[in-house]
Protein backbone atom coordinates (compact mmCIF):
# COMPACT_ATOMS: atom_id res chain seq x y z
CA UNK A 1 0.00 0.00 0.00
CA UNK A 2 1.59 3.23 -1.17
CA UNK A 3 -0.86 5.83 0.15
CA UNK A 4 -0.99 7.08 3.73
CA UNK A 5 -2.75 4.81 6.21
CA UNK A 6 -6.19 6.09 7.19
CA UNK A 7 -7.29 3.26 9.44
CA UNK A 8 -5.11 0.85 11.31
CA UNK A 9 -6.58 -2.02 13.30
CA UNK A 10 -4.07 -3.72 15.60
CA UNK A 11 -4.95 -7.00 17.32
CA UNK A 12 -8.56 -5.93 17.88
CA UNK A 13 -10.50 -8.40 20.00
CA UNK A 14 -14.09 -8.45 21.15
CA UNK A 15 -15.37 -11.10 23.54
CA UNK A 16 -19.01 -11.48 24.57
CA UNK A 17 -18.56 -13.62 27.67
CA UNK A 18 -16.95 -16.80 26.38
CA UNK A 19 -17.67 -16.08 22.73
CA UNK A 20 -14.85 -14.33 20.92
CA UNK A 21 -16.58 -12.52 18.06
CA UNK A 22 -13.45 -10.77 16.83
CA UNK A 23 -10.18 -12.52 17.61
CA UNK A 24 -7.02 -10.39 17.38
CA UNK A 25 -7.71 -9.02 13.92
CA UNK A 26 -5.16 -6.61 12.40
CA UNK A 27 -5.31 -4.80 9.07
CA UNK A 28 -4.67 -1.36 7.58
CA UNK A 29 -6.67 0.70 5.14
CA UNK A 30 -4.89 3.26 2.96
CA UNK A 31 -6.15 6.63 1.79
CA UNK A 32 -8.68 6.24 -1.00
CA UNK A 33 -8.89 2.46 -0.78
CA UNK A 34 -12.16 0.58 -1.14
CA UNK A 35 -11.84 -2.66 0.71
CA UNK A 36 -14.33 -5.46 1.14
CA UNK A 37 -14.81 -7.06 4.53
CA UNK A 38 -16.29 -10.46 3.79
CA UNK A 39 -16.93 -13.81 5.41
CA UNK A 40 -19.76 -16.22 6.11
CA UNK A 41 -22.65 -15.31 8.40
CA UNK A 42 -21.58 -14.94 12.01
CA UNK A 43 -17.92 -14.52 11.17
CA UNK A 44 -17.66 -11.21 13.03
CA UNK A 45 -17.81 -8.68 10.17
CA UNK A 46 -20.50 -6.49 11.65
CA UNK A 47 -18.87 -6.73 15.09
CA UNK A 48 -15.65 -5.52 13.47
CA UNK A 49 -17.53 -2.61 11.93
CA UNK A 50 -19.09 -1.83 15.30
CA UNK A 51 -15.64 -1.75 16.89
CA UNK A 52 -14.44 0.73 14.27
CA UNK A 53 -17.50 3.00 14.52
CA UNK A 54 -17.45 3.01 18.31
CA UNK A 55 -20.77 1.18 18.75
CA UNK A 56 -18.81 -1.46 20.66
CA UNK A 57 -15.69 -1.12 22.78
CA UNK A 58 -12.94 -3.61 21.95
CA UNK A 59 -11.95 -6.00 24.76
CA UNK A 60 -8.33 -5.43 23.75
CA UNK A 61 -6.31 -4.13 20.86
CA UNK A 62 -6.15 -0.72 19.28
CA UNK A 63 -7.82 1.06 16.38
CA UNK A 64 -6.46 4.32 15.00
CA UNK A 65 -7.90 6.73 12.48
CA UNK A 66 -5.17 8.78 10.79
CA UNK A 67 -3.00 8.32 13.86
CA UNK A 68 -5.69 9.23 16.43
CA UNK A 69 -6.67 6.42 18.76
CA UNK A 70 -10.42 5.83 18.41
CA UNK A 71 -10.84 2.45 20.10
CA UNK A 72 -12.76 2.87 23.34
CA UNK A 73 -14.25 6.24 22.33
CA UNK A 74 -18.02 6.77 22.24
CA UNK A 75 -19.61 6.65 18.76
CA UNK A 76 -20.35 10.39 18.76
CA UNK A 77 -16.66 11.12 19.32
CA UNK A 78 -15.64 8.68 16.60
CA UNK A 79 -18.14 10.33 14.25
CA UNK A 80 -16.64 13.74 14.98
CA UNK A 81 -13.13 12.47 14.27
CA UNK A 82 -14.35 11.29 10.89
CA UNK A 83 -16.08 7.94 10.55
CA UNK A 84 -19.58 7.67 9.13
CA UNK A 85 -21.59 4.51 8.60
CA UNK A 86 -24.74 2.95 7.28
CA UNK A 87 -26.51 0.12 9.07
CA UNK A 88 -27.15 -3.49 8.15
CA UNK A 89 -30.89 -2.93 8.58
CA UNK A 90 -31.46 0.51 7.11
CA UNK A 91 -31.89 3.17 9.80
CA UNK A 92 -33.54 6.40 8.72
CA UNK A 93 -35.14 9.01 10.97
CA UNK A 94 -38.78 8.04 10.41
CA UNK A 95 -40.52 11.28 11.45
CA UNK A 96 -38.40 13.44 9.17
CA UNK A 97 -38.19 14.31 5.50
CA UNK A 98 -35.44 13.15 3.17
CA UNK A 99 -33.54 16.41 3.37
CA UNK A 100 -33.78 16.55 7.16
CA UNK A 101 -32.37 13.03 7.32
CA UNK A 102 -29.38 14.03 5.21
CA UNK A 103 -28.89 17.32 7.03
CA UNK A 104 -28.63 15.33 10.27
CA UNK A 105 -25.34 13.99 8.95
CA UNK A 106 -23.94 17.42 8.12
CA UNK A 107 -24.60 19.26 11.38
CA UNK A 108 -22.90 17.44 14.23
CA UNK A 109 -20.04 15.36 12.89
CA UNK A 110 -16.85 16.42 11.09
CA UNK A 111 -18.79 18.73 8.81
CA UNK A 112 -20.32 21.20 11.22
CA UNK A 113 -22.69 23.02 8.89
CA UNK A 114 -25.92 24.70 9.95
CA UNK A 115 -28.76 26.64 8.39
CA UNK A 116 -28.79 27.31 4.65
CA UNK A 117 -25.30 25.88 3.91
CA UNK A 118 -26.29 22.59 5.54
CA UNK A 119 -29.54 22.51 3.53
CA UNK A 120 -27.75 23.23 0.26
CA UNK A 121 -25.14 20.59 0.98
CA UNK A 122 -27.84 18.02 1.77
CA UNK A 123 -29.78 18.95 -1.37
CA UNK A 124 -26.66 18.39 -3.45
CA UNK A 125 -26.11 14.96 -1.95
CA UNK A 126 -29.73 13.96 -2.54
CA UNK A 127 -29.34 15.00 -6.16
CA UNK A 128 -26.30 12.79 -6.37
CA UNK A 129 -28.33 9.87 -5.11
CA UNK A 130 -30.90 10.53 -7.83
CA UNK A 131 -33.43 11.95 -5.40
CA UNK A 132 -33.71 15.48 -6.79
CA UNK A 133 -37.11 17.01 -6.24
CA UNK A 134 -37.96 14.59 -3.46
CA UNK A 135 -36.30 16.55 -0.66
CA UNK A 136 -39.55 17.19 1.21
CA UNK A 137 -40.90 13.67 1.01
CA UNK A 138 -41.19 12.01 4.43
CA UNK A 139 -38.69 9.12 4.45
CA UNK A 140 -41.32 6.88 5.99
CA UNK A 141 -43.16 7.07 2.65
CA UNK A 142 -40.10 6.10 0.60
CA UNK A 143 -39.23 2.74 -0.89
CA UNK A 144 -36.49 0.57 0.59
CA UNK A 145 -33.84 1.54 -1.94
CA UNK A 146 -34.64 5.23 -1.61
CA UNK A 147 -34.31 4.95 2.16
CA UNK A 148 -30.94 3.30 1.60
CA UNK A 149 -29.95 6.18 -0.66
CA UNK A 150 -30.99 8.68 1.99
CA UNK A 151 -29.00 6.77 4.59
CA UNK A 152 -25.91 6.80 2.35
CA UNK A 153 -26.34 10.51 1.68
CA UNK A 154 -26.56 11.10 5.43
CA UNK A 155 -23.27 9.25 5.95
CA UNK A 156 -21.60 11.25 3.16
CA UNK A 157 -22.95 14.50 4.57
CA UNK A 158 -20.44 14.20 7.39
CA UNK A 159 -17.58 14.30 4.85
CA UNK A 160 -16.04 11.29 6.62
CA UNK A 161 -12.41 10.24 6.34
CA UNK A 162 -13.66 6.68 6.37
CA UNK A 163 -17.05 5.45 5.24
CA UNK A 164 -18.40 2.14 6.57
CA UNK A 165 -21.08 0.39 4.53
CA UNK A 166 -22.75 -2.53 6.29
CA UNK A 167 -24.38 -4.63 3.55
CA UNK A 168 -25.60 -1.52 1.82
CA UNK A 169 -26.38 -3.53 -1.33
CA UNK A 170 -28.38 -6.24 0.45
CA UNK A 171 -32.03 -6.54 -0.48
CA UNK A 172 -31.79 -4.66 -3.78
CA UNK A 173 -33.23 -6.16 -6.95
CA UNK A 174 -30.87 -6.81 -9.90
CA UNK A 175 -31.38 -3.45 -11.62
CA UNK A 176 -31.14 -1.53 -8.36
CA UNK A 177 -27.99 -3.48 -7.61
CA UNK A 178 -26.32 -2.19 -10.77
CA UNK A 179 -27.23 1.38 -9.83
CA UNK A 180 -25.96 0.80 -6.31
CA UNK A 181 -22.64 -0.57 -7.54
CA UNK A 182 -22.18 2.43 -9.85
CA UNK A 183 -22.93 4.78 -6.98
CA UNK A 184 -20.35 3.21 -4.69
CA UNK A 185 -17.80 3.24 -7.50
CA UNK A 186 -18.42 6.95 -8.04
CA UNK A 187 -17.97 7.72 -4.36
CA UNK A 188 -14.78 5.71 -4.28
CA UNK A 189 -13.39 7.45 -7.38
CA UNK A 190 -13.73 10.78 -5.61
CA UNK A 191 -11.03 9.54 -3.27
CA UNK A 192 -13.29 8.54 -0.39
CA UNK A 193 -11.89 5.71 1.77
CA UNK A 194 -14.46 2.95 2.17
CA UNK A 195 -14.84 -0.36 3.99
CA UNK A 196 -17.80 -2.38 2.78
CA UNK A 197 -19.19 -5.46 4.46
CA UNK A 198 -20.96 -7.34 1.70
CA UNK A 199 -22.38 -10.70 0.69
CA UNK A 200 -22.92 -9.77 -2.94
CA UNK A 201 -19.76 -11.28 -4.45
CA UNK A 202 -20.25 -9.65 -7.84
CA UNK A 203 -20.05 -6.28 -6.15
CA UNK A 204 -16.94 -7.26 -4.22
CA UNK A 205 -15.28 -8.51 -7.41
CA UNK A 206 -16.15 -5.37 -9.38
CA UNK A 207 -15.52 -2.76 -6.74
CA UNK A 208 -12.89 -3.81 -4.24
CA UNK A 209 -9.18 -3.68 -4.86
CA UNK A 210 -8.57 -5.61 -1.68
CA UNK A 211 -10.50 -7.93 0.61
CA UNK A 212 -10.24 -8.85 4.26
CA UNK A 213 -11.85 -12.22 4.92
CA UNK A 214 -13.06 -13.26 8.36
CA UNK A 215 -14.23 -16.62 9.61
CA UNK A 216 -15.31 -17.40 13.19
CA UNK A 217 -13.83 -14.14 14.40
CA UNK A 218 -10.37 -14.54 12.92
CA UNK A 219 -8.94 -13.02 9.77
CA UNK A 220 -8.19 -15.81 7.31
CA UNK A 221 -7.12 -13.75 4.30
CA UNK A 222 -6.13 -10.21 3.37
CA UNK A 223 -5.14 -9.41 -0.19
CA UNK A 224 -6.19 -8.58 -3.74
CA UNK A 225 -9.85 -9.42 -4.30
CA UNK A 226 -9.30 -11.87 -7.18
CA UNK A 227 -6.64 -13.93 -5.43
CA UNK A 228 -8.44 -13.91 -2.08
CA UNK A 229 -11.66 -15.16 -3.64
CA UNK A 230 -9.72 -18.02 -5.22
CA UNK A 231 -7.98 -18.92 -1.96
CA UNK A 232 -8.91 -22.50 -0.90
CA UNK A 233 -9.20 -21.42 2.77
CA UNK A 234 -11.74 -18.76 1.83
CA UNK A 235 -13.75 -21.15 -0.33
CA UNK A 236 -13.69 -23.70 2.48
CA UNK A 237 -14.97 -21.08 4.93
CA UNK A 238 -17.90 -20.32 2.68
CA UNK A 239 -18.76 -23.68 1.21
CA UNK A 240 -17.24 -26.31 3.52
CA UNK A 241 -14.46 -28.87 2.99
CA UNK A 242 -15.96 -30.80 0.12
CA UNK A 243 -15.89 -27.93 -2.34
CA UNK A 244 -12.47 -26.58 -1.57
Amino acid sequence: MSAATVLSVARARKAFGGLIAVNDVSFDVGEGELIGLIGPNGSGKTTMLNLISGALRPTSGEIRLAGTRISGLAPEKVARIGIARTFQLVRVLPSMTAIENVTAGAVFARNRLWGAPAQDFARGLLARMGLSGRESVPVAAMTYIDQKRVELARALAADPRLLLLDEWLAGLNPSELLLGIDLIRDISREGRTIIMVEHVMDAIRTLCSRCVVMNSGTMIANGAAASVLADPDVIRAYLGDDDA
Partner: protein
Amino acid sequence: MMRLRRDELMVAGGGIAAIALLSLLPLFSDGFVLSFGVNLMLYVAMCTAWTLFSGPTRLVSLASAGFFGVGTYSVALGLDFLPFPVLIAIAAFVSAALAGLVGAATLRLSGVYFVIFTLGLAELIRQVVAWSQSRFAHKMGLYVFTDFTERDLYWMLLALTTLVFGVGWLINRSRLGFALRIIGDDETVARHVGIATARAKIVLFMASGAFLGIAGAIVAPRYAYIEPQAAFNPMISFLVVIMALLGGTRRLWGPLVGVIPFTIVMEFITARFPNHSSVVIGITFLAIVYLLPDGITGRIEGLRDRIRHRAAARNGIEAPEAIEEKAA
Protein backbone atom coordinates in the same frame (compact mmCIF):
# COMPACT_ATOMS: atom_id res chain seq x y z
CA MET B 1 -29.12 33.01 11.75
CA MET B 2 -31.90 35.07 13.27
CA ARG B 3 -33.61 35.82 9.98
CA LEU B 4 -37.30 35.11 10.42
CA ARG B 5 -39.63 33.64 7.87
CA ARG B 6 -42.94 35.34 7.24
CA ASP B 7 -44.99 32.65 9.01
CA GLU B 8 -42.66 32.88 12.00
CA LEU B 9 -43.23 36.63 12.17
CA MET B 10 -46.98 36.04 12.07
CA VAL B 11 -46.77 33.53 14.91
CA ALA B 12 -44.59 35.90 16.91
CA GLY B 13 -47.01 38.76 16.29
CA GLY B 14 -49.99 36.64 17.28
CA GLY B 15 -48.17 35.48 20.38
CA ILE B 16 -47.37 39.02 21.50
CA ALA B 17 -50.97 40.09 20.91
CA ALA B 18 -52.25 37.10 22.91
CA ILE B 19 -49.89 37.88 25.79
CA ALA B 20 -50.99 41.52 25.79
CA LEU B 21 -54.65 40.50 25.88
CA LEU B 22 -54.11 37.91 28.58
CA SER B 23 -52.23 40.39 30.73
CA LEU B 24 -55.38 42.53 30.84
CA LEU B 25 -57.48 39.80 32.46
CA PRO B 26 -56.88 40.86 36.10
CA LEU B 27 -58.15 44.35 35.29
CA PHE B 28 -61.57 42.99 34.50
CA SER B 29 -61.97 40.30 37.07
CA ASP B 30 -60.55 39.52 40.43
CA GLY B 31 -62.78 36.76 41.63
CA PHE B 32 -63.43 33.32 40.29
CA VAL B 33 -62.25 34.02 36.74
CA LEU B 34 -58.88 35.34 37.91
CA SER B 35 -58.38 32.40 40.22
CA PHE B 36 -59.22 30.10 37.35
CA GLY B 37 -56.78 32.06 35.17
CA VAL B 38 -53.99 31.45 37.69
CA ASN B 39 -54.70 27.71 37.60
CA LEU B 40 -54.76 27.71 33.84
CA MET B 41 -51.57 29.74 33.48
CA LEU B 42 -49.79 27.54 36.04
CA TYR B 43 -50.54 24.38 34.11
CA VAL B 44 -49.82 25.93 30.72
CA ALA B 45 -46.37 26.90 32.00
CA MET B 46 -45.75 23.52 33.62
CA CYS B 47 -47.04 21.38 30.76
CA THR B 48 -45.08 23.36 28.18
CA ALA B 49 -41.94 23.12 30.32
CA TRP B 50 -42.50 19.36 30.65
CA THR B 51 -42.95 19.04 26.89
CA LEU B 52 -39.67 20.85 26.23
CA PHE B 53 -37.93 17.68 27.38
CA SER B 54 -40.47 14.89 27.10
CA GLY B 55 -41.86 15.92 23.71
CA PRO B 56 -38.80 15.40 21.54
CA THR B 57 -37.10 12.71 23.64
CA ARG B 58 -40.34 10.78 24.29
CA LEU B 59 -39.12 10.07 27.81
CA VAL B 60 -42.05 10.50 30.20
CA SER B 61 -40.90 12.24 33.35
CA LEU B 62 -42.98 11.95 36.52
CA ALA B 63 -40.60 14.16 38.48
CA SER B 64 -42.57 17.38 37.89
CA ALA B 65 -43.89 17.36 41.47
CA GLY B 66 -40.32 17.05 42.69
CA PHE B 67 -39.17 20.19 40.87
CA PHE B 68 -42.38 22.02 41.73
CA GLY B 69 -41.97 21.16 45.42
CA VAL B 70 -38.32 22.20 45.42
CA GLY B 71 -39.42 25.57 44.05
CA THR B 72 -42.17 25.91 46.65
CA TYR B 73 -39.82 25.06 49.48
CA SER B 74 -37.13 27.44 48.21
CA VAL B 75 -39.63 30.24 48.80
CA ALA B 76 -41.01 28.88 52.07
CA LEU B 77 -37.56 28.46 53.61
CA GLY B 78 -36.01 31.69 52.39
CA LEU B 79 -38.88 34.16 52.55
CA ASP B 80 -37.76 35.72 55.83
CA PHE B 81 -34.21 36.32 54.65
CA LEU B 82 -34.16 37.05 50.93
CA PRO B 83 -36.14 39.07 48.38
CA PHE B 84 -38.63 37.13 46.25
CA PRO B 85 -36.79 37.43 42.89
CA VAL B 86 -33.67 35.94 44.50
CA LEU B 87 -35.78 33.05 45.79
CA ILE B 88 -37.08 32.43 42.30
CA ALA B 89 -33.52 32.33 41.01
CA ILE B 90 -32.60 29.89 43.79
CA ALA B 91 -35.62 27.72 42.94
CA ALA B 92 -34.53 27.62 39.30
CA PHE B 93 -30.95 26.85 40.21
CA VAL B 94 -31.72 24.08 42.71
CA SER B 95 -34.28 22.45 40.39
CA ALA B 96 -31.84 22.57 37.49
CA ALA B 97 -29.10 21.04 39.64
CA LEU B 98 -31.48 18.30 40.76
CA ALA B 99 -32.46 17.65 37.13
CA GLY B 100 -28.79 17.47 36.22
CA LEU B 101 -28.18 14.84 38.90
CA VAL B 102 -31.22 12.83 37.85
CA GLY B 103 -30.17 13.08 34.22
CA ALA B 104 -26.65 11.88 34.99
CA ALA B 105 -28.01 8.99 37.06
CA THR B 106 -30.61 7.90 34.52
CA LEU B 107 -28.60 8.14 31.31
CA ARG B 108 -28.67 4.43 30.80
CA LEU B 109 -32.32 4.07 31.67
CA SER B 110 -34.80 4.05 28.89
CA GLY B 111 -38.54 3.98 28.52
CA VAL B 112 -40.43 2.61 31.48
CA TYR B 113 -37.40 2.56 33.78
CA PHE B 114 -36.99 6.29 33.40
CA VAL B 115 -40.68 6.81 34.23
CA ILE B 116 -40.45 4.75 37.42
CA PHE B 117 -37.19 6.35 38.45
CA THR B 118 -38.57 9.87 38.16
CA LEU B 119 -41.75 8.93 40.06
CA GLY B 120 -39.67 7.33 42.79
CA LEU B 121 -37.38 10.34 42.95
CA ALA B 122 -40.22 12.81 43.53
CA GLU B 123 -41.57 10.56 46.28
CA LEU B 124 -38.13 10.22 47.82
CA ILE B 125 -37.70 13.99 48.02
CA ARG B 126 -41.13 14.30 49.61
CA GLN B 127 -40.31 11.71 52.26
CA VAL B 128 -36.92 13.26 53.00
CA VAL B 129 -38.44 16.73 53.38
CA ALA B 130 -41.23 15.41 55.63
CA TRP B 131 -38.76 13.45 57.74
CA SER B 132 -36.28 16.30 58.17
CA GLN B 133 -39.06 18.72 59.06
CA SER B 134 -40.42 16.55 61.84
CA ARG B 135 -36.94 15.54 62.97
CA PHE B 136 -35.24 18.94 63.04
CA ALA B 137 -37.97 21.56 62.99
CA HIS B 138 -40.58 19.58 64.93
CA LYS B 139 -43.42 20.77 62.76
CA MET B 140 -45.25 19.58 59.68
CA GLY B 141 -45.25 22.64 57.48
CA LEU B 142 -44.12 26.21 56.88
CA TYR B 143 -46.09 29.45 56.65
CA VAL B 144 -45.72 31.63 53.57
CA PHE B 145 -47.10 35.11 54.12
CA THR B 146 -46.53 37.67 51.37
CA ASP B 147 -48.21 40.79 50.07
CA PHE B 148 -48.78 39.19 46.69
CA THR B 149 -52.34 39.23 45.42
CA GLU B 150 -53.83 36.77 42.98
CA ARG B 151 -53.18 39.39 40.28
CA ASP B 152 -49.45 39.45 40.95
CA LEU B 153 -49.28 35.67 40.78
CA TYR B 154 -51.19 35.69 37.52
CA TRP B 155 -48.82 38.19 35.94
CA MET B 156 -45.78 36.32 37.16
CA LEU B 157 -47.12 33.07 35.75
CA LEU B 158 -47.92 34.78 32.45
CA ALA B 159 -44.33 36.04 32.34
CA LEU B 160 -43.06 32.53 33.07
CA THR B 161 -45.26 31.05 30.34
CA THR B 162 -43.93 33.63 27.88
CA LEU B 163 -40.39 32.76 28.91
CA VAL B 164 -40.99 29.03 28.49
CA PHE B 165 -42.46 29.55 25.02
CA GLY B 166 -39.60 31.88 24.07
CA VAL B 167 -36.93 29.45 25.20
CA GLY B 168 -38.76 26.53 23.58
CA TRP B 169 -38.97 28.42 20.31
CA LEU B 170 -35.26 29.26 20.40
CA ILE B 171 -34.37 25.64 21.19
CA ASN B 172 -36.49 24.38 18.29
CA ARG B 173 -34.56 26.61 15.91
CA SER B 174 -31.18 25.57 17.27
CA ARG B 175 -28.84 22.66 16.73
CA LEU B 176 -29.93 21.38 20.13
CA GLY B 177 -33.55 21.21 18.98
CA PHE B 178 -32.59 19.35 15.82
CA ALA B 179 -30.39 17.00 17.85
CA LEU B 180 -33.29 16.21 20.14
CA ARG B 181 -35.60 15.38 17.27
CA ILE B 182 -32.97 13.00 15.94
CA ILE B 183 -32.57 11.43 19.38
CA GLY B 184 -36.35 11.00 19.62
CA ASP B 185 -36.36 9.21 16.28
CA ASP B 186 -33.36 6.93 16.72
CA GLU B 187 -30.76 7.32 19.42
CA THR B 188 -28.26 4.99 17.72
CA VAL B 189 -28.31 7.08 14.57
CA ALA B 190 -28.04 10.22 16.69
CA ARG B 191 -24.80 9.03 18.26
CA HIS B 192 -23.36 7.93 14.93
CA VAL B 193 -23.95 11.31 13.35
CA GLY B 194 -21.94 12.87 16.16
CA ILE B 195 -24.53 13.95 18.74
CA ALA B 196 -23.50 13.76 22.39
CA THR B 197 -26.93 12.40 23.26
CA ALA B 198 -26.42 12.27 27.00
CA ARG B 199 -25.36 15.90 27.23
CA ALA B 200 -28.19 17.11 25.01
CA LYS B 201 -30.77 15.30 27.11
CA ILE B 202 -29.36 16.54 30.41
CA VAL B 203 -29.23 20.16 29.25
CA LEU B 204 -32.86 20.02 28.23
CA PHE B 205 -34.02 18.19 31.34
CA MET B 206 -32.29 20.88 33.42
CA ALA B 207 -34.04 23.68 31.53
CA SER B 208 -37.38 21.92 31.90
CA GLY B 209 -36.77 21.26 35.62
CA ALA B 210 -35.76 24.87 36.25
CA PHE B 211 -39.03 26.15 34.77
CA LEU B 212 -41.06 23.70 36.87
CA GLY B 213 -39.16 24.88 39.95
CA ILE B 214 -39.92 28.50 39.12
CA ALA B 215 -43.61 27.62 38.73
CA GLY B 216 -43.58 26.11 42.22
CA ALA B 217 -41.85 29.17 43.63
CA ILE B 218 -44.34 31.58 42.09
CA VAL B 219 -47.43 29.84 43.44
CA ALA B 220 -45.96 29.18 46.90
CA PRO B 221 -47.61 32.34 48.32
CA ARG B 222 -50.97 30.95 47.22
CA TYR B 223 -50.79 28.05 49.65
CA ALA B 224 -50.01 30.19 52.73
CA TYR B 225 -49.24 26.98 54.60
CA ILE B 226 -46.87 24.58 52.89
CA GLU B 227 -46.42 20.94 53.76
CA PRO B 228 -44.70 18.16 51.81
CA GLN B 229 -47.96 16.36 50.99
CA ALA B 230 -49.20 19.40 49.08
CA ALA B 231 -45.94 20.72 47.61
CA PHE B 232 -44.74 17.34 46.34
CA ASN B 233 -48.18 15.94 45.56
CA PRO B 234 -47.65 13.24 42.89
CA MET B 235 -50.98 14.28 41.39
CA ILE B 236 -49.15 17.35 40.03
CA SER B 237 -46.86 15.11 37.99
CA PHE B 238 -49.77 13.05 36.67
CA LEU B 239 -51.85 16.10 35.76
CA VAL B 240 -48.93 17.64 33.89
CA VAL B 241 -48.39 14.47 31.86
CA ILE B 242 -52.08 13.94 31.10
CA MET B 243 -52.76 17.52 30.01
CA ALA B 244 -49.62 17.65 27.86
CA LEU B 245 -50.46 14.33 26.19
CA LEU B 246 -54.05 15.40 25.68
CA GLY B 247 -52.91 18.46 23.78
CA GLY B 248 -50.10 16.71 21.96
CA THR B 249 -46.36 16.98 22.50
CA ARG B 250 -45.12 17.32 18.94
CA ARG B 251 -45.60 21.08 18.86
CA LEU B 252 -44.59 23.67 21.36
CA TRP B 253 -48.14 24.93 21.66
CA GLY B 254 -49.62 21.42 21.81
CA PRO B 255 -49.95 21.25 25.62
CA LEU B 256 -51.83 24.57 25.61
CA VAL B 257 -54.61 22.89 23.63
CA GLY B 258 -54.87 20.17 26.27
CA VAL B 259 -54.64 22.36 29.37
CA ILE B 260 -57.59 24.61 28.54
CA PRO B 261 -60.39 22.00 28.17
CA PHE B 262 -58.97 19.76 30.89
CA THR B 263 -58.74 22.58 33.45
CA ILE B 264 -62.28 23.68 32.67
CA VAL B 265 -63.64 20.15 33.09
CA MET B 266 -61.66 19.61 36.27
CA GLU B 267 -62.91 22.92 37.69
CA PHE B 268 -66.48 21.82 37.04
CA ILE B 269 -65.98 18.34 38.44
CA THR B 270 -64.22 19.44 41.61
CA ALA B 271 -67.00 21.97 42.25
CA ARG B 272 -69.89 19.56 41.66
CA PHE B 273 -68.46 16.15 42.48
CA PRO B 274 -65.44 16.77 44.68
CA ASN B 275 -64.78 13.08 45.24
CA HIS B 276 -64.77 12.05 41.62
CA SER B 277 -61.85 13.96 40.19
CA SER B 278 -59.70 10.83 39.93
CA VAL B 279 -62.39 9.25 37.79
CA VAL B 280 -62.06 12.12 35.31
CA ILE B 281 -58.31 11.79 35.28
CA GLY B 282 -58.58 8.05 34.68
CA ILE B 283 -61.13 8.38 31.89
CA THR B 284 -59.11 11.16 30.23
CA PHE B 285 -56.04 9.00 30.32
CA LEU B 286 -57.86 6.06 28.74
CA ALA B 287 -59.32 8.36 26.10
CA ILE B 288 -55.86 9.67 25.22
CA VAL B 289 -54.36 6.20 24.94
CA TYR B 290 -57.22 4.77 22.86
CA LEU B 291 -58.46 7.72 20.85
CA LEU B 292 -55.79 10.41 20.76
CA PRO B 293 -52.35 8.84 20.92
CA ASP B 294 -50.82 11.96 19.35
CA GLY B 295 -53.02 14.34 21.30
CA ILE B 296 -55.57 16.81 19.99
CA THR B 297 -53.06 18.68 17.86
CA GLY B 298 -51.71 15.45 16.37
CA ARG B 299 -55.27 14.43 15.50
CA ILE B 300 -56.06 17.75 13.89
CA GLU B 301 -52.90 17.66 11.80
CA GLY B 302 -53.64 14.09 10.76
CA LEU B 303 -57.16 15.03 9.65
CA ARG B 304 -55.90 18.07 7.78
CA ASP B 305 -53.36 15.95 5.89
CA ARG B 306 -56.05 13.43 5.02
CA ILE B 307 -58.41 16.10 3.71
CA ARG B 308 -55.66 17.59 1.58
CA HIS B 309 -54.75 14.20 0.18
CA ARG B 310 -58.37 13.48 -0.64
CA ALA B 311 -58.74 16.85 -2.35
CA ALA B 312 -55.55 16.22 -4.27
CA ALA B 313 -56.72 12.75 -5.30
CA ARG B 314 -59.98 14.23 -6.58
CA ASN B 315 -58.08 16.70 -8.69
CA GLY B 316 -55.78 13.95 -9.86
CA ILE B 317 -52.62 15.69 -8.77
CA GLU B 318 -50.13 15.46 -5.96
CA ALA B 319 -50.67 17.84 -3.08
CA PRO B 320 -47.24 19.40 -2.75
CA GLU B 321 -48.21 21.65 0.17
CA ALA B 322 -49.24 18.66 2.25
CA ILE B 323 -45.68 17.44 1.97
CA GLU B 324 -44.18 20.91 2.40
CA GLU B 325 -46.10 21.23 5.63
CA LYS B 326 -44.40 18.22 7.14
CA ALA B 327 -41.04 19.67 6.23
CA ALA B 328 -41.78 22.92 8.02
